[in-house]
Structure formats: structure tokens, C-alpha cells
């Protein structure tokens, strides 16, 4: 047993931190938040040049063939800087879906482009408010032509392909389809989001040409597997954001004086920060386990992923809201950076299903494996 990152992985982390300090200071997040662009295109290109989008893609498909332990290091660092790029949609979801279920031809066609960031992918599941289910899917496939409406498709307006969950008449009632977004049967309408630095869209499919990914009738099981895998990566990104929130709160509390002393010397503030530390530490440790389970494709993945996801969601929410509180009035201004973390924490927490949904999955995983 060994519970640490390797020396090379730690080196990668240092390199990533250096790179992001230079290319993704908070001013870049602010620029996207304030501006018209949906994402920081320049940063996306640089990240692709660094090979981050290619991390786990096998070498035969133009990737680096590295492990998920490298990818989680990058995920955490991107989370820390609240990077305004479609990394989670393209890398954790679309690329993963292809690796998981794509045919050789599909992989050959798309993975090399995803690897270099030339193609941005996304994932389309939700059709309305509330928890999605196979039975509730209204998007239908008729001989490879999809019809239906998906909402809150993250980064949809900048993506070239989407992995769409649609209704199937056989098996578990669902199928995954790959849809090229630049075609007549597809309409994308941006939806205003909670986090202006990450665009979301409504995706209307009217007989859009689509290719089946994996087999029809196992789409729901595949989706769950895909979400389990993505959950570990999301969780690392969330842990990065939670840690950034704690650091921001600490820095402010040390410098801000009230009643003649730093607010950081008041216990109400200290204990708030200690609680952030506790939550973040527990979440990070669960993420280690999740990273291992993802990398080893272990039978424990559903439980490990849900555990990492629930604790990271809670840690980021707590740290980002209490970071604002620690800043007092300043924390509530547009001017200060607290808002980025607060916005992103909620966005990431619902992007692949709520805390409640993952709590539910966690208990299901325990009951199924009796692994308590």
C-alpha cells in the first residue's frame, strides 16, 4: 500500500501551478465573467499545448497515455484557479465517453482531435428540472436521427460534439449517441448561467444525425459508469476550489483588523477556517481513494467515486460561502474574487448531479457491495 503521489506526479503539480500562475490569474476569470466570450480561448489552446487534454488518451489515438493520477493533479490545479475553460465537459465527460464506449473508428476519428483541443466535446443529459431517469427520457432516436431537447448543456455553444443520452426501446431504456453539433438538425441557444465564466446551452435536436456509442439498451448503465468516472475528476477540481477558498479567507483574515487585532485571532473566524480545513482534508483523502479506484478500474469505483464527490461538493460549498463571510462587505462585491469560487462551487456541484443524488448512489453502492 502506498498513499502518496509519486515524485513525477508532484513535479507535474509544481509545473502546473507555475503555468497557471502565469496564464490563469484571477484576472482571466474576471475577463470571461465580464466579457462576451464564453471561455478563455487562449488558455484553452495553451492547456492543449501542454498536453493536458491528452493526458489519459492512449498513445495510439494521439494522447500521452498517462494515468488518471496525472489527470487528477491537473484537475485539482484547474479547480484552484477556477479556470474558465471547458475542461470538465471535454476531458472528463466527452473524452471519457469515447474511451469507455467508442468503437475503434469513433476513437480514431475523435480522440486525436480531442487530444489537441481542436475539438471540444460535451455531455447532454438533462431535459428539464429535477433528477433524470432512463424512464423519463424524452429524446428519441429514429434510425440514427435524434429528436428532443436537452438543457444546461455545459459549454454547448463552443463544442463541436456532444455525447447525448437518449431513449432506447430495449435493454435499460437508454442509449448514448455522439452528435456533431455543426449540422442542420441542431440548434444551440445559450442559457444564462450562475457562473458566467462557464457557458451553458439549450440543445434542440430535430432529426439530428447521430452515431450510437456502445450498444443500444445499455446506455443507462454506461451513463452511470461515465458519471462515476467523471465524479472523481470533478471532485478533484472541487477540492482545488475548496482549498483556494480557504487560502483566500486565511489571507484576508490575517490582514484585516477589527477591534485592534487581526480578525484571524477571533475564535469564530478561527474555527470557521479550521472547519474548512477539516472538510477539505477529509474530501482530499476521499479523493485519493477515488483516484486510485478510477485508475485501477477497481470494483469499488462506484462507492469511492460517490464518497469523493459528496465530500468534495460539501467542502467546496462550505469553504466558498464562508470565504465570502470572512471577507465581510468586501466579500459581497463584484470587485473581489470571492464570487468566482462561490459561483463555480455550485456549478460543479450540479453539473453531474446533485449532492443528494450522489448521497443516494453512495448508499446504493454500499448496499450492492456490502462494503461498509
Amino acid at each position, binding site marked *: *500500500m*502506498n*498513499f*502518496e*503521489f*509519486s515524485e513525477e506526479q508532484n513535479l507535474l503539480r509544481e509545473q502546473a501551478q507555475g503555468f497557471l500562475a502565469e496564464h490563469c490569474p484571477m484576472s482571466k476569470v474576471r475577463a470571461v465573467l465580464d466579457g462576451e466570450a464564453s471561455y478563455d480561448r487562449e488558455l484553452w489552446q495553451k492547456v492543449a499545448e501542454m498536453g493536458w487534454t491528452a493526458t489519459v488518451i492512449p498513445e495510439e489515438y494521439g494522447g500521452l497515455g498517462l494515468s488518471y*493520477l496525472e489527470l487528477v493533479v491537473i484537475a485539482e490545479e484547474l479547480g484552484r484557479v477556477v479556470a474558465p475553460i471547458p475542461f470538465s465537459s471535454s476531458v472528463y465527460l466527452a473524452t471519457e465517453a469515447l474511451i469507455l464506449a467508442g468503437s475503434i473508428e469513433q476513437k480514431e476519428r475523435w480522440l486525436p482531435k480531442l487530444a489537441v483541443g481542436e475539438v471540444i466535446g460535451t455531455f447532454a443529459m438533462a431535459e428539464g428540472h429535477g433528477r433524470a431517469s432512463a424512464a423519463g427520457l424524452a429524446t428519441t432516436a429514429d434510425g440514427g436521427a435524434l429528436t428532443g431537447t436537452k438543457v444546461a448543456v455545459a459549454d454547448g455553444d463552443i463544442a463541436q460534439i456532444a455525447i447525448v443520452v437518449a431513449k432506447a426501446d430495449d435493454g435499460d431504456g437508454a442509449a448514448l449517441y455522439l452528435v456533431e453539433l455543426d449540422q442542420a438538425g441542431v440548434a444551440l441557444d445559450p442559457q444564462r448561467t450562475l457562473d458566467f465564466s462557464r457557458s451553458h446551452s439549450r440543445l434542440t435536436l430535430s432529426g439530428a444525425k447521430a452515431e450510437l456509442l456502445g450498444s443500444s439498451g445499455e446506455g443507462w448503465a454506461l451513463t452511470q459508469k461515465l458519471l462515476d468516472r467523471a465524479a472523481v475528476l470533478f471532485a478533484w477540481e472541487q477540492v482545488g476550489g475548496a482549498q483556494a477558498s480557504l487560502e483566500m479567507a*486565511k489571507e484576508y*483574515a*490575517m490582514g484585516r483588523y477589527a477591534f485592534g*487585532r*487581526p480578525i*484571524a*485571532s*477571533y*475564535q469564530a*473566524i*478561527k*474555527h470557521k*477556517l*479550521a*472547519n474548512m*480545513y*477539516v472538510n477539505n*482534508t*477529509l*474530501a482530499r*483523502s*476521499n479523493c*485519493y*481513494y477515488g*483516484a*486510485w*479506484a478510477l*485508475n*485501477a478500474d*477497481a470494483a469499488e469505483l462506484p462507492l469511492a467515486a*460517490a*464518497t469523493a464527490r*459528496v*465530500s468534495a461538493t*460539501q467542502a467546496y460549498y462550505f469553504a466558498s460561502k464562508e470565504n465570502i463571510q470572512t471577507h465581510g462587505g468586501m466579500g459581497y462585491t463584484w470587485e473581489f474574487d470571492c464570487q468566482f469560487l462561490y459561483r463555480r462551487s455550485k456549478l460543479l456541484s450540479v453539473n453531474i448531479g446533485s449532492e*443528494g443524488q*450522489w*448521497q*443516494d448512489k*453512495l*448508499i446504493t453502492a*454500499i*448496499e450492492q457491495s456490502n462494503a*461498509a
Partner: protein
Amino acid sequence: MDFNDTAEEAAFREQARAWLQDNVPSADELEGLGEVEQAQLWQKRKYDAGWACIRWPKEYGGRDASAIEQVILNQEEAKYPALPGGVFGIGQGMAAPTLMAWAADEQKLRLLPKMASGEEIWCQLFSEPSAGSDLAALRTKAEKDGDEWVINGQKIWTSGAHYCDYGILVVRTDPNVAKHKGLSYFFVDMHSPGIEIKAIKQLSGDANFNEVYFTDVRIPDSQRLGAVGQGWQVAISTLMHERASIGGGGSGVDFKALLQLARTVTIDDKPAIEDSAVRAKLANWYCRRSGLKYTGYRSLSALSRGEMPGPENSIGKLVAAPMTQDMASFAMDLMEMSGAVWDEEFSPAAGLFQGTYMGIPGFRIAGGTDEIMANIIAERVLGLPQEPRVDKGIPFSEVPTGT
């Protein structure tokens, strides 16, 4: 990163598993013995076979095992939740590392093997009526007389003093210097003349802790650990180990027991485990428990490099104690009206939940309260400033006190 055993680790696990299977004492063997005797029977058996205090050096009764091997043994032992134990924690977990760091070689050779075998049991004589969280405010006084020290004063909350053979003791050797500077650290034979022990009945109705009075108790100077006036530093090293060892240990209700209960009791004629509110709570506790477990594993890596357990270990008790309290309380809610009954025959898990509910308030206080643990994390881990203090820079004798 690899959460699986290596080949050697798997072999060690198999060895541990097989030995435990053949040697865990049966209910018949334990029948009629008191808590302490049961614990001693099991400890001696482990010691004789080389399974006690395995990380200690061989000459002290251990087997020079690695931190990972200790985890493996703990994991295998945890499969037997009913194993007797609990009385050796203070000695093996706190006194032993302190002795290893500060005692003379012949003392270590004389004391540690008997501690490992469970033959001699140790207690911790730190807290006093006016010195708990603020331990350095203690007043029990030691005066030098030739090669000996004469101790007068009172300790309180001393767990197990009534069955212990030795104690680790912090006393004031100089009241006229600043409070942290006037302390010294000793170990003391609990059978020494002048020691008087009075049981204190706890809120739960049990009586595991005591008042310990010292009247002209004589301790040889050779039993001093660290220099005169260095007692605070030695005490801190003990407390660091306390935090590391308390954090990991279970204390009553665990997740499995609660899960089992949620499977058996019903809500609207369905197993409670199917209720979404129940699932959400259980999931949160599972996450915290799992987070603590893996945090423990990660800090092992530091320990296996020979580092001292640091202040970050305070997280263990700070998370586990309040969470266990909430789990016990929730378990009784799941029982609904019958939750009020605390009866070994009638209550689920032989009354574990009610018992934990009554025992856990002590766990939130013992070994540093929740509030002190949060302070430690804030100040020593995150580096936040201390609160302004009125007891700094003045002799102990001039520090203000309550009534």
C-alpha cells in the same frame, strides 16, 4: 498511489489473519473476568506470539514492524469488534513514545516490555481541578530533597488510576517563573506511599476516572524525564501522540452498526435504509468516516519516514467525537419510541447506541476538547494568530484565577 497490498503486505496480512483466527479469546475464556483481566489475558497472548506493539523495537517487546504493517494488523483486528482492550492506550500510545524519547536506556528495557505485555498498566496524571484545557496552569508541586522529589497536590480525571501501576506526571517545580517554564515531568509508581485514589462517578453511571491526591509522595530524581523546567516540552510530545492515537480509535457506534440498524427498522413499513433522508445522513457519516480513515493512512507515510505526529492529527478526534454522538442520537430516533429503552436483552446491538450516547460526551472532552482541537488546527496547522493572552510574560504566581 496504490491502495492494494504488495506481495509482502499480503503475506503479512495472511499471517495476521491466521493468527487472529486461531487465538482470539472465546466468550468462554473471558467469562467471569473483569474488564482489566480480560484485556490483560488478550494482551499477554498477543505479546507472547509477537503481535503486541509491533512497531516497537524488538528489545522493548515489539518486532520493528512498519507503519503499514501496523495498519494491516489494525484492519484485521477490527474484524473482531468484541476484542477486549482499552486499558493500555495511555501507556502504549502516550507514555511509551515519551519514555522512548526521554528515558534512560535501562529504564526503557525495564518498563517497556511489561507495558507491551500488559502486565503493567499506566495512567496519565496531567489534569487538575484548575488545569484542564489550560494544562500549564497546573499547581501540584514538587520540591527537591536530596536525590528525591517530594510531591504534594491533586490530580483529577485520571482514567484507570485505580488499576494502574505507573503514571506519567507533570508538576510545578518553580512557581516564580512564567507558567510554561516552571514545569517538570516524571513517571511515578502508583503504589508509592502518599498516593490516595478516589473514584469519580461519571454521567454514564460508570466510574473509570478518579481524583488522585499526593501527600509527601517521594519520587527518585532518576524518574524525571527531561530537564527540570522542561516539563512542558515533554508533555507536548506526549499530547501529540495522544492526538494521533485517540483519533484513530473507535469509540462505540460505528458506521456498520448504524447501517445494520437502518436495514432492520422500518419507516412506513419499508426498511429505513430506503428512506432518502436516512440515506443522506448515512452517506455524510460514511464520507467523514472514510475521509478520516484515508487521512490516517496518508499521515502514516509521514510517520513511516520517522516524523513525529504533528498537530494535523487533531482532526481525528475533532471529527470522530461529535459525529459519533450524532450517529448514536440518530440511531435512537430510528428506533422511535423504543429508543428510550436501554436494555442489553431488548435494545438493538445490545444497547450499543444508548451506551454510546451516554459515553460520548466524555470523548468530546477527554484529551483536548473539540474547541481546543479546533484552536490547534487554526493556530498550529493554519498558522492563525493566538488570541491576546493575559498570562504571558508574568510569573505563574501572579496569573489571575477564578474562584
